[in-house]
């Protein structure tokens, strides 16, 4: 990660119409609360040092009812690719994949240290994950389709994506 990567990430996101909010770990809970509308569902943030949804309005752990009803899903992402504004959503047993997919808005939490310049730079990370049986999704922008005669956003996946960048992690 470099400052240039972060800047590029931000501009790629803005090309995609995805907003980015910068915050520090201390302000994480407050930032999340200011961004989400209820009902919101999230996954436990165990792996993401010092971050927790416990003091927010976001409900955990996810249940099928929450997945169906929630307006917002909050998840961490494994890496981000600055070039395309891509979020690398890692599948895990706590449900990051469905929580990022089902609700109409996905709030993705990215640590600045996880922003990589390009797809090539993400290859080693993916290699390691696949070798261990893991799965990841490159998610870029919002779900969309042109199959009904005009471009429509938000089909089977989220209609809005927002990124929260943790600048001190």
């Amino acid at each position, binding site marked *: 990660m470099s400052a240039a990567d972060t800047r590029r990430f931000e501009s790629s996101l803005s090309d995609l119409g995805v907003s980015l909010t910068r915050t520090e770990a201390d302000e994480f809970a407050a930032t999340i609360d200011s961004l989400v509308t209820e009902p919101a569902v999230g996954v436990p943030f165990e792996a993401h040092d010092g971050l927790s949804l416990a003091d927010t309005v976001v409900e955990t752990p996810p249940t099928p009812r929450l997945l169906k009803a929630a307006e917002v899903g909050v998840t961490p992402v494994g890496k981000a690719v600055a070039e395309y504004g891509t979020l690398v959503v890692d*599948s895990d*047993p706590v449900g*990051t994949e469905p929580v990022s997919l089902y609700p109409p808005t996905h709030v993705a939490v990215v640590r600045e240290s996880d922003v990589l310049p390009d797809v090539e730079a993400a*290859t080693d990370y993916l290699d390691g994950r*696949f070798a261990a049986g893991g799965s990841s999704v490159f998610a870029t922008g919002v779900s969309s389709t042109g*199959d009904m005669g005009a471009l429509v956003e938000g*089909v089977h996946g989220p209609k809005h994506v927002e990124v929260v960048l943790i600048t001190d992690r």
Partner: protein
Amino acid sequence: MSAQRKRRRKAERIRHLLETEGDAVHENVTHLNEGRYEAIERFDEFEDLRTQARRIKEDAIENLPDLIDTLRESVESNGGTLYVADDADDANRYITDVVGSKDAETLVKSKSMTTEEIEVNEALEAMGVDVFETDLGEFVIQVADEAPSHLIGPSLHKSREAVAELFNRVFDPEEPFETAEELTEFARDYLGERIRDADVGMTGANFVLAESGTITLVTNEGNARKSAVTPDTHVAVAGIEKIIPNAETLQPFVELISKTATGQDISQYVSMLTPPVDSPTIDFENPDEPLGSGDGERDFHLVLIDNGRTEMREDDHLRETLYCIRCGACANSCGNFQHVGGHAFGGETYTGGIATGWEAGIEGLETTSEFNDLCTGCSRCVNACPVKIDIPWINTVVRDRINGETPPSEFEFLVEGLTPDAEGTVSPQKRFFGNFGTLAKLGSATAPVSNWVAQLGPVRTLMDRYLGVAPDRDLPQFERETLVDWFESRRPRAPNATADRAVVLYPDAYTNYVLTDRGKAAVRTLEALGVHVELGSPIESGRAPLSQGMVRTATDHAEAVAADLDPYLDAGFDVVVVEPSDLAMMRREYEKLLDADSHARLSENSYEIMEYVYGLLSNGADADALAGATVPVAYHSHCQQRTLGVDAYTEAVLEDLGFDIVTSDVECCGMAGSFGYKSEYYELSLDVGEDLHDQFADESDRTLVASGTSCTEQMADLFVRDVTHPVELVAPDGR
């Protein structure tokens, strides 16, 4: 059915498709194609990644048996099952067994051409399982009970109005659907419920990584993720050719596929799933239990399908088809496809572009024979393909094989003497067009009588009936004095002692017998720039027979041309070519027809006339020796010229000489060789030409200029005006 009736039927079907699906296809495909150009323009590494992607696929197909073994180990050690099916029946038997063992009632699918290929929906429905396509385009097709018309946009032949009409009829909503938003929302809710209820999820796979057992799905909607991960049983179906080694070899494809497919920098979702995935199962019947506490274990089956692919792998010409990543760019870049869509190209599953290769390998020649000649060989798809497949060549080979299987016709006598070798099974129409060189020689020798006769009504009727020559198309007017005659009559004949360079000008059949003025202009231009010029022999390059799939005849021509030019090359001459499609023969197609040395020698030493002029001027030749700019011009470069990347030279020369020039950027003029002469394609040819016509609609005060013969003739028909070759603009005045 008589050949003429067949042609009429084909023409009728094409007319019907132009009327019903043409507009929607044109709009959608043009959009995709323009997006592709823009995405590639933004992306510096395109050519490098294409080279890498090509190499990865070559290696992967070469090592396929090993990759399958590696994949089997990794899938099994992950806890899944790999099944390699010989054919469609075998695959369906396995899949229905798996689905049956789950007592499944419903199954949701994400888009997969491979499952279309094996018709798994029918097999599942026969056992009472309800199958739902969750990709919206595929859903539209399923509701309409139609076949996909495009690799990546199965329903792009349907307009919003057509989809609304369909949904209103089938689903009968309280408030009729109108907007794309309403339609999408309905489909999303309808399918969302089906996904939540489904017992089994089925997906295809764009790429399968052997070392880890990871499957990659490239989508925009998110339906593949949901279908794969929501039900606890996942069946993925893919052709064996989809296997590549690992994440490193995946990277170029992730970057390429969306750019060439839809013109997006990257698709919304590139899912890389190593099933059974870690994500918890979702049991919507127990809504308040945490995820994963529901029905438990995930089950994964990867079904790889051979279905003719092993044989394709062993076939020197069809092998390349297996490198295809099904992005659809070849179809999008095709002038005919842009106007009439995939349903006109035929094919059981795949359609347009590379589909000829797929259908020939998977279904057999019969399926490909009916419409594959919609490929005009213009070669615009060649640079579009992210894995550099020579798609026109595959079409040519398949055409050649179909020719070989067709029984001789009762009208043999009409084209008697036109085919020099044993291609006696080739239809009279193909032999007629395939032997243009012989015809031109005859026509010229008997001109102007031959021209008058050819224009006579009864003759045109006969030509239509027996040879399928469109009665409304103007025929080439043969010149009594050929370019060679003219050149021979010039004095002095001694070599130009002061010339810096020596050129042998290749007199193609058109330049020699029909468009002799452009040949004379080429000679005068070269001489004015200080070049000693000689003429080669007027041997047809092989382009005409090649475009009819007559590969042996084409090879004979190629060898004759090479033998004729050989002594000149020995003597240090450069070869200059007027007709771009013949330059393309020497640079590209001769690679397949000649030995490697002859091809290398010819391709390295042959130049298009304006390319050569550009080179002379850049090396200090005196531009003042040429005619100055007089008229403003509207220039259409030729498709093969653009594929070779030599069109820029013409534009540069004209601009340097001060011409006021506008250029067209349409993919194709619609004529491409003999295509527009054929009765069955005449109307389509004009329809494709409309784009060019529109572009130059406001340029009525400009001189029309084109490099290729076909474009010249098509434009003369479209605009009813004279069309000039660029070299005629710059040739010095005088003799």
